[in-house]
């Protein structure tokens, strides 16, 4: 274990040692006293007796103490260090978890501050040739400081980190760190986190040199993990606001849940959250204008970021549907079933159908390709598929019940006489599949939502089944641009918000939850705006001229709301990283030496005092 010096230039202070010795060579001024005889005093001959300005150096404990003191001070100034128990790595990647749960105040002042302090200590222990990289892992991974040995820059970079209301994307940060440590023999990744991270199974076999510094003690927290607003199926003036509140603590938590509309309190409901469980809640509220519903938890817990969530709710507009069909009563009836659909039926399509919200092409090829969202039935010769064939009597083997289009839809008893055989294009997901071909595809192609059904409805038993009108209703909702627009007006913290204006805008400004307006840069001639600055949860307003759009940023992440720190970080099924208490490498010794110097100073003072008083 070798001793190294961080500031070897301080050894120049050793020049003080000859000065101390010089002082001892010089004669000391003494008090003259006449005594009867010096006979009895011979044993007390002073250590520094001299009759000349300079004298021979004598053995003097005071001198020895002072030399030791000077040596200790010089040594402390030169900042020696020894490699600590940890291996001295040449490159260290510091990943600072800046997710919402790091704002928890179970440790004072907060987990993030504690993590930052620990990281700063790590900077302090950095050897003079070691390098460090600072990564801030929030919703995105930011390189706060690229590899450097400059401790000032590293400290500045750490000071510039701030937690966001966003969930952690640790995978991204670890991937970045992994690339940074490639081909570096001695490297360590220091992760400062509370362990509220999503699955890291892709690092299972990477054997990352990961050192996990777990911060946080665990505390009580209840948070909103889901929020949705829907029109009431029976009463169009009512809105159903669905919220799910998770309680992470092991005790039932009484809480007051408030529902606000545009800042106005509509309802306050006292509930008791079951321990370590999620409580779903439904509020019914009237809505007479477009606005924002906010659900707020009234309680004092350790994480404030998840105690409020907002959602934009727009008044339902009639959906204008153009059905291009040679005649399909089942389809017509199913489309008419939702009360808000204004159905227009046409045998053929000659224009882009700009005035409609969605177009249904029922086995009809349009002369002009429609611009709105599209439900295409039995429509094969398009440029969507590389090849098209037919398959007779396909058997439905699978359907995706998790997709919102297939909500409450069942294909148990559906037979199909003949279907088109296509490969699944990359823009779509198969919703219903037979062994040979996907039967129903859904996806988005150049901002146009498309549902493709690969068989003639009338050549199947599906229209006779209950699932058919449900599917059509789901499809209308999914294809309705207003609905998708409303859904798009709520983003998770850290995710970008995208908005397309009706016309190109030259300038826009964004008013964040803190009430401050910031200009937003717009590409010239573009009507699309992407806002990435969504680190804070709350209600944002985007203004461009007279146009204004409101969107909400929410955390709504159950992983972040569970604030109990995880002492182990699972990397997949088998690998895990245990939180370390390993003392930092490169232990600086100067505080101890400085303390010893202080002790020597006191000892010297005591010794001198004892001799003369």
């Amino acid at each position: 274990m070798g001793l190294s010096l961080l500031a070897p230039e301080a050894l120049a202070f050793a020049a003080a040692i000859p000065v101390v010795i010089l002082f001892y060579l010089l004669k000391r001024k003494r008090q003259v006293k006449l005594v009867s005889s010096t006979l009895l005093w011979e044993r007390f001959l002073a250590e520094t007796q001299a009759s000349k300005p300079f004298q021979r150096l004598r053995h003097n404990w005071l001198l020895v103490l002072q030399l030791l003191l000077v040596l200790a001070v010089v040594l402390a100034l030169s900042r020696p260090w020894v490699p600590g128990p940890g291996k001295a790595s040449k490159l260290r990647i510091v990943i600072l978890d800046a997710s919402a749960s790091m704002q928890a105040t179970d440790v004072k002042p907060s987990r993030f501050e504690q993590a930052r302090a620990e990281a700063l200590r790590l900077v302090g222990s950095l050897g003079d040739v070691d390098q460090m990289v600072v990564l801030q892992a929030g919703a995105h991974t930011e390189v706060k400081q690229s590899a450097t040995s400059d401790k000032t820059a590293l400290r500045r970079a750490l000071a510039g980190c701030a937690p966001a209301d966003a969930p952690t994307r640790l995978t991204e940060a670890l991937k970045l760190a992994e690339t940074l440590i490639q081909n570096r023999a001695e490297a360590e990744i220091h992760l400062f986190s509370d362990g509220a991270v999503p699955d890291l199974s892709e690092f299972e076999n990477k054997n990352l040199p990961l050192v996990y510094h777990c911060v946080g003690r665990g505390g009580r927290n209840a948070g909103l993990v889901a929020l949705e607003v829907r029109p009431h199926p029976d009463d169009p003036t009512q809105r159903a606001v669905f919220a799910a509140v998770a309680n992470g603590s092991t005790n039932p938590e009484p809480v007051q849940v408030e529902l606000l509309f545009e800042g106005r309190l509509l309802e306050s409901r006292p509930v008791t959250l079951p321990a370590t469980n999620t409580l779903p809640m439904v509020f019914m509220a009237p809505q007479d204008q477009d606005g924002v519903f906010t659900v707020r938890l009234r309680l004092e817990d350790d994480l404030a970021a998840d105690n409020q969530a907002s959602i934009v709710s727009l008044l339902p507009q009639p959906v204008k549907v153009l059905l291009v069909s040679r005649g399909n009563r089942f389809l017509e009836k199913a489309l008419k079933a939702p009360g808000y659909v204004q159905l227009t039926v046409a045998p053929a399509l000659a224009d882009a159908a700009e005035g409609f919200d969605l177009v249904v092409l029922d086995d009809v090829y349009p002369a002009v390709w429609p611009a709105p969202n599209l439900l295409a039935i039995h429509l094969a010769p398009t440029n969507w598929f590389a090849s098209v064939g037919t398959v007779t009597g396909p058997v439905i083997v699978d359907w995706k019940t998790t997709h919102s289009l297939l909500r409450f839809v069942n294909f148990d008893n559906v037979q199909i006489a003949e279907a088109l055989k296509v490969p699944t294009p990359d823009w779509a997901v198969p919703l219903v599949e037979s062994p040979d071909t996907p039967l129903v595809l859904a996806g988005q192609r150049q901002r146009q939502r498309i549902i493709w059904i690969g068989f003639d409805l009338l050549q199947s038993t599906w229209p006779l089944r209950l699932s058919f009108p449900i599917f059509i209703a789901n499809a209308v909702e999914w294809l309705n641009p207003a609905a998708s627009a409303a859904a798009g007006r709520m983003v998770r913290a850290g995710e970008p918000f995208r908005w397309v204006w009706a016309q190109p805008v030259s300038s826009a400004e964004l008013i964040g939850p803190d009430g401050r307006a910031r200009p937003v840069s717009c590409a010239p001639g573009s009507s699309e705006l992407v806002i990435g600055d969504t680190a804070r949860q709350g209600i944002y307003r985007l203004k461009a001229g007279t146009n204004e759009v409101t969107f909400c940023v929410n955390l709504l992440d159950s992983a972040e709301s569970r604030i109990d720190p995880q002492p182990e970080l699972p990397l997949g099924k088998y690998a895990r990283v245990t939180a370390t208490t390993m003392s930092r490498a490169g232990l600086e010794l100067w505080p101890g030496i400085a303390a010893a110097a202080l002790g020597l100073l006191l000892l010297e003072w005591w010794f001198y005092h004892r001799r003369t008083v």
Partner: protein
Amino acid sequence: MGALLSAELLRRLEQLQLLAQRRAKSTLKGERRSRARGHSVEFADYRTYAPGDDLRYLDWNLYARLDRLFVKLYEEERELPVRIFLDASESMNFGQPPKFDFARQVAAAIGYVALCGFDRVSVVPFPDLAEIPTPTGNPTAANPGTQHPGLDSETRAQQAAARAALRSVRGKKSAVQFFEHLSLLRAAGPANLNQALRRGALEARQPGLAVVLSDLLDPGGYEAGLKALVGRGFQVDVVQILAPEELDPTTYGDLRLVDSETGAVQEVTFGRFRLKAYHNTVQQFLGRIRQFCAAHRICFFTARSDTDLEELLLKRLRAAEVWA
């Protein structure tokens, strides 16, 4: 006489008599028994008559019985010469009260007891006047502390007279003058104890009782002088007088100590923590003297200059059988 000894003390001292462990060897008549045969009431021996002997001393009873002539011999009573060696060096001026004052008091007491016993008392102050520098002489300009006070010519003459008068005193009636002369003495100059005692031993015509009153703080030592006295046949009593501050120093710090007699400079760093070591040094010094004195059958006393005089004179000296 209140200046040196109180009347009460003098009255009590009158009852004391100096004890001499050896027969007096003086040639002068006194009240002390001696080996010499002479005229007194104390019978000593018989001697065969020789023609020319004083017929008054013939023992007629013996002649009648033995028909032979015998002469009765009587012990001759001689005086006991008491020499008091008084250290009058500069170092004796130190202390509160000064050591020299205390030494003079002891000298006066011993002298008075001797005078009362018809013994001859001579006080030998040392150093000699010739060895004491004049005030202008020998100043070390760099160090004022080393400058000896010395004696001016007027005091010198007075001192010479007093010293001459103290050379030989006898008889109780001389006590008043003895005290006066003693109180005129001044302490000054550097002393050489050995030289003074040796000279005193040589000068004495007959050995007797020698009392040395000194602080014995002589760089040259004391052994040679005391040995000379003992060798000359003196019965030696040594009373060492030390100042309280010599036993318990009260000045601390970085000191430049100047010897009052020699002017020697000694640099000392002294603190309370070294007091014990100093005490040890003093005790070792005293122990060495005590050992030396015991080996040479010298009566040795140590007294602080602030000791109660009566306690020393009437208890310690009596207990040590200096007098009874």
